């Protein structure tokens, strides 16, 4: 039965719709103007009025235009063929839209997210007579690098008995592969795809576990000092130009995750293009296949409709949860969550809700918390584990972290990678602040070594502050040495050349190995004649270490360079002098 409503008010991307039938919160409807059908979502109901956010420009809509309700919540389509795709915030495939409409996005255009013609080699894993429920495994297909599991839809509310299931063979996502019936005699037709509402977390697992295992990013300052965990959450706040996007791009490339979902949320289109054009050309060392094969891009950039921007992070989270159900480790990178929060703010303003701080809605904090709650490591029905890790950038107004989005985010995440304007200006990348940042997760490096290094960083910073006042002359040689050591640690370990294939990605083995050597240097008591002697020594040692960072660990030069470094250290250490 079709439900229709009539537009009675338009304010920006918000329309007010009068509807005599029942309305569902978050229900999707289409505002119809001429040939165009503009997708919209109910976000508030009052009496027979539905307040809807339109996912498109509302230009040209009129009071009196009709709205067709669908009775369905805003959903994404789940099934094989998601990997490697580039979608807008509502899961329209951008490449197909480009083929169809050319340079520009077309208002109201919608396309099937999954290719309905493509054949998949299906292997059944269930048989007639099996009892199935939401999330039961029906079969598998090969999706590039993985065995993609075909599930009974997560929305099933009762158990069903499989009446039949197709034999192994080639099928499309649209083909019926099985029939099932429940106790009440309700029949079910199953295919390899189904829909799921984006704002509802997928919970077809046994239990949620505590994230403990590190998720390796191969960025040293993160893995060693401020690690993230599989199924954990973290945020990257920083002023404009501090390096949030570059850091996420590097992570999306080098992180040891099975699937990476990039949610480009309200940022520059140009940045996505780099990923879009480069990933297909890059090989993933873990699989030997193109990096694009493990990546999904959800792209709702800053000039695309604002309401769809709000939806895009949920779309990304839902796709992440879906792959987690297959026992995979998924990493979701959202850039920037502030744009998502701003989209909420715009809608809230149009709903004339009572505003909170900086006009953000009062529910900002709970929405942010709910979003990050979708991360997690879970034990699945088959005993395997799967994880969804979420990392979001935050773009605080004026670069000031004392603002609602940063503060609400800090309350819920497990790690904080705060980017510093000063470090970015000094071109010390990645510009994660080594003193202010934190992580609640465990690194794979011995905690004692890390504690030593951090103590030294704090001391070095204090001495540096002092030196700005009293000058080098007024600083003791010992203090000066401590300062130089902290600078050394910064230069050879915390900083990393993200664009170099060797230095840009440091494996855990290498981090353990190199950090030990760095720690040795930090703990050594060197003997210097004066400050120039000390500076000269650390300059040379730094250069030698940086050169070392650029040598492949398996290359024989690696050991050679290490010997050079060892000799340099020995020459200046106190033991050597006493001989």
């Amino acid at each position: 039965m079709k439900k229709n409503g009539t537009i009675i008010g338009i304010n920006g991307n918000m329309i007010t719709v009068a509807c005599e039938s029942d309305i569902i919160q978050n229900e999707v409807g289409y505002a119809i103007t001429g040939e165009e059908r503009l997708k919209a979502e109910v976000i508030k109901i009052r009496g027979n009025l539905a307040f809807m956010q339109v996912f498109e420009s509302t230009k040209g809509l009129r009071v009196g235009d009709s709205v067709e309700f669908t009775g369905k919540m805003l959903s994404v389509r789940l099934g094989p063929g998601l990997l490697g795709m580039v979608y807008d915030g509502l899961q329209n495939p951008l490449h197909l839209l480009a083929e169809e409409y050319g340079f520009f996005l077309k208002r109201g255009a919608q396309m099937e997210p999954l290719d309905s013609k493509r054949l998949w080699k299906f292997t059944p894993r269930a048989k007639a007579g099996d009892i199935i429920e939401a999330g039961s495994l029906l079969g598998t297909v090969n999706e590039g690098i993985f065995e993609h599991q075909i599930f009974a839809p997560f929305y099933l509310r009762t158990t069903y008995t499989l009446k039949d299931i197709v034999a192994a063979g080639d099928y499309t996502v649209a083909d019926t592969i099985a029939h099932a019936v429940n106790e009440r005699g309700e029949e079910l037709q199953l295919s390899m795809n189904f829909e799921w509402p984006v704002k509802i977390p997928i919970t077809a697992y046994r239990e949620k576990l505590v994230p403990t295992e590190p998720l390796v990013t191969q960025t040293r300052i993160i893995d060693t000092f401020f690690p993230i965990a599989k199924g954990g959450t973290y945020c990257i706040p920083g002023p404009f130009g501090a390096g949030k996007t570059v850091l996420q791009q590097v992570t999306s490339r080098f992180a040891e995750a099975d699937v990476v979902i990039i949610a480009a949320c309200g940022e520059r289109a140009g940045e996505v293009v780099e990923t879009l054009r480069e990933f297909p050309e890059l090989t993933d060392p873990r699989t030997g296949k193109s990096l694009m094969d493990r990546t999904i891009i959800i792209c709702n950039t800053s000039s695309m409709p604002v309401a769809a921007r709000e939806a895009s992070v949920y779309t990304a989270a839902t796709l992440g949860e879906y792959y987690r159900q297959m026992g995979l480790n998924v990493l979701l990178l959202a850039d920037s969550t502030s744009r998502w929060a701003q989209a909420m703010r715009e809608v809230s303003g149009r709903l004339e809700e009572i505003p909170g701080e900086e006009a953000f809605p009062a529910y900002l904090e709970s929405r942010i918390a709910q979003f990050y709650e979708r991360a997690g490591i879970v034990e699945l029905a088959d005993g395997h584990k799967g994880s969804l890790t979420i990392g979001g950038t935050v773009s605080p107004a004026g670069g000031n972290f004392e603002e609602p989005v940063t503060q609400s985010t800090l309350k819920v995440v497990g790690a904080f990678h705060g980017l510093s304007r000063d470090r970015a200006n000094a071109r010390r990348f990645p510009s994660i602040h080594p003193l202010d940042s934190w992580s609640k997760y465990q690194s794979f490096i011995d905690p004692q070594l890390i504690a030593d290094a951090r103590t030294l960083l704090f001391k070095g910073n204090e001495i540096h502050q002092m030196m700005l006042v009293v000058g080098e002359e007024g600083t003791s040689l010992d203090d000066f040495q401590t300062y130089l050591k902290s600078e050394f640690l910064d230069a050879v370990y915390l900083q990393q050349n993200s664009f170099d294939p060797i230095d840009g990605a440091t494996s855990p083995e290498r981090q353990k190995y190199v950090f030990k050597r760095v720690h040795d240097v930090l703990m050594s008591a060197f003997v210097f004649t004066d400050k120039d002697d000390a500076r000269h020594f650390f300059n040379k040692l730094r250069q030698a270490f940086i050169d070392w960072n650029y040598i492949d660990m398996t290359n024989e030069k690696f050991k050679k360079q290490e010997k050079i470094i060892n000799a340099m250290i020995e020459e200046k250490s106190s033991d050597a002098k006493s001989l």
Partner: protein
Amino acid sequence: MQKVYNKILSVTGNVITVKASGVAYEELAEITTQRGKSLAQVIKLDGDIVSLQVFAGSQGIATNDEVRFLGHPMQVTFSDNMLGRIFNGSGEPRDKGSHLTENLIQIAGPSVNPAKRIIPRRMVRTNIPMIDVFNSLVISQKLPIFSVSGEPYNELLARIALQAEVDMIILGGIGLKYDQYMYFRQVLEEGGALSRSIFFIHTASDPIVEGLMVPDLCLAVAERFALKGRDVLVLLTDMTNFADALKEIAITMEQVPSNRGYPGDLYSQLAARYEKAVDFEGAGSVTILAVTTMPGDDVTHPVPDNTGYITEGQFYLRNGRIEPFGSLSRLKQQVNKSTREDHRAIMDGMIQLYAQFKETEEKRAMGFRMSTWDKKLLKYGALFESSLMDLHVNIPLEEALDRGWQILAECFTPEETGMKSELIQKFWPKSTTATPAAQPEVVASPVSEG
């Protein structure tokens, strides 16, 4: 089908309401008052109550003035006949030329599909060393000039317009001072560039709301020319005035402000304009250079702050110079690898030394003793500022690179510069007296924070 209404229900700020039906969102209306005709745009529909923002402002509007809905949103003409012409913020001729009504196009059209974008790769040479060498401008880039009022930002814009290798220039003035408008006209005319330029000018004395349309008009026209294969440079001055006009409307509409009175959608509004910068594969391009004046020289002010989050870098104009620190072209690495082999080295090396010079200057100001090295740095800083940073310097990239080597050679020995030995062998000026060192020491000096 044009409907006429004669009863204005309310006038608040520059927004009026009328009772009308069948009106489309963002439709245009024409209001006839005792002062003449003005365009207005529908900004809210609530039942049969229509809110319109009046471009000419609400002064003198009578409640029985005539409101005629035009049945279409804002449009602008598009044709080669526009070249050399000057229009106002409503797209009407501002010069003595004829009214153009052919080939009307909509403004603020849809976004480019990100999947159709390409990685930028063409450098725009400007002959300004601080841009070409240190922060190259790239076709399809969107870049603001951050500046306090009083700095010669319009002079800089005009110069770039004249010298940039582009096919055409579209200048959008928002709240432009009249003399600055005349200045642009004169400079482009004298430079022989007027015939490849189009102006959309809203001056400081025009009604504020009328400035709101200027960026969209410029960009809609630019986009069309780009699709026809032209490389278009769009100059917008000053986007802070644009943001202030948005603020005024938002306050009139009683929207809850987010930050210092600016509406919560300031970011989206600015992004919708800046994101029009594009390089169409197989056709032309749109490059945007905009002025953003910073009230109180405060980069955290909502307008420069939101702009910085949207654009691909920024030029800081301070004391009549483009500051090397803080200025950034985020796209430069896409192009400076294929200019001359020493480009990146000169760019990085000279800036690092300049950073050291700045520290030394501070030390000197605090009364610390100056070492020989400090003295070299002081000489270097002065030379760098006068012969490269000064905005009057007008030389091609290659000459600027040569000059960079010259400055280095006048101040330092080769090994003191930290430059790679191969480059030194090839580019170090032979004429100077500096003795080539036997074994250049590979020691970079520490750069400290702050």
